[in-house]
């Protein structure tokens, strides 16, 4: 009797876990599409977002379709993040004419004026957006800073770096992001086609 109860209990635990995981996935899928990043993110569409910038305007990732985006999650309390900032400034100057855009996402839990002051001191010349838990979650629960995503002109992630890398590695990833030719929306990438197909299947269920 005891043994049977234990087996039933185990099955119950497994079933509840399964339902919780499935429910969480389906809920997120309905809201944002299956673009929440989990595991290997290479060749996966970058989740879109709309975040406030320090200058007050709203910035969407999709506004930059056709350009390569270096998306850098950082915080004022993160010394390694400080090291990269002058490199990003240089890289945007160097590759901006080729279509590189740098977007900083500040993950600080502090007033935007302090973030602005810090960015100004660091000579940051690119837009700094105010990060949210939602965007962190969408990008795979960004906890380690700096974390940088390199997104090509078609909105596909071509590289992800966690922690501080050398300048040359960063530049190599920038070149990788710039190398893909832009395909207008009428010509979706393979990753986008897969997402569309998955959404269509979900809708017909």
């Amino acid at each position: 009797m005891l043994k049977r109860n234990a087996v039933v209990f185990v099955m119950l635990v497994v079933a509840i876990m399964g339902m919780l995981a499935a429910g969480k996935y389906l809920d997120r899928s309905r809201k944002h599409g299956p673009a929440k990043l989990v595991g290997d993110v290479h060749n996966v569409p970058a989740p879109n977002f709309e975040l406030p910038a320090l200058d007050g305007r709203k910035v969407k990732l999709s506004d930059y379709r056709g350009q390569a985006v270096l998306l850098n999650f950082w915080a004022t309390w993160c010394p390694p993040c400080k090291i990269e900032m002058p490199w990003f400034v240089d890289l945007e100057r160097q590759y901006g004419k080729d279509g590189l855009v740098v977007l900083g996402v500040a993950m600080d839990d502090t007033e935007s004026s302090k973030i602005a002051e810090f960015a100004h001191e660091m000579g940051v010349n690119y837009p700094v957006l105010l990060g949210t838990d939602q965007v962190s979650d969408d990008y795979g629960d960004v906890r380690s800073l700096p974390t940088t995503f390199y997104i090509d002109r078609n909105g596909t992630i071509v590289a992800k770096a966690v922690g501080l890398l050398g300048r040359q590695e960063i530049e190599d990833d920038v070149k990788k992001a710039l190398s893909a030719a832009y395909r207008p929306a009428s010509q979706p990438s393979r990753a986008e086609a897969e997402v569309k197909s998955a959404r269509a299947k979900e809708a017909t269920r």
Partner: protein
Amino acid sequence: MKRQLPFRLIVFLLTSFALAQTPGEKQPSVIMAPVGKVQLRAGGSANLALDFRIGPDFHINSNKPRADYLIPTVLKLDPSEPVTIADVKYPAGEDMSFAFSPNERLSVYSGDFSINTMLKAPANAAAGTYPVKGELRFQACDRSACYPPRSIPVQFQVIVVMK
């Protein structure tokens, strides 16, 4: 032995589930050593060292980091009346420079460190056991990345005895 099997299976499943929820990157850990009985005479004071251990490969800012933008380690204690916290003494940080910024020295704690506190009870305090609750807030980094500030609970009991 057979009876333990379901229990082990549950532990295994729960652990697997927890690990599956954790992103690939390692996360810093700071733990506090258990505090034994803290006895305090009414009208007197007692020193108490709270011992903490930081996980290997990580460091946290000391209580006096070298830059305004860094988040200091802070112990907040909320004793039950009539116990009061008369003093909190943080250890000096260790000046270290890291590969990510070889020219900048940071004041940090790594490995084990202790924070010394002084507890007091007034002469008219009633004998009894009084809980002290609080938290240690810190912000950790390793050699190439930093992690959001977080807090761990700090909790112990103070036994006030009569003179």
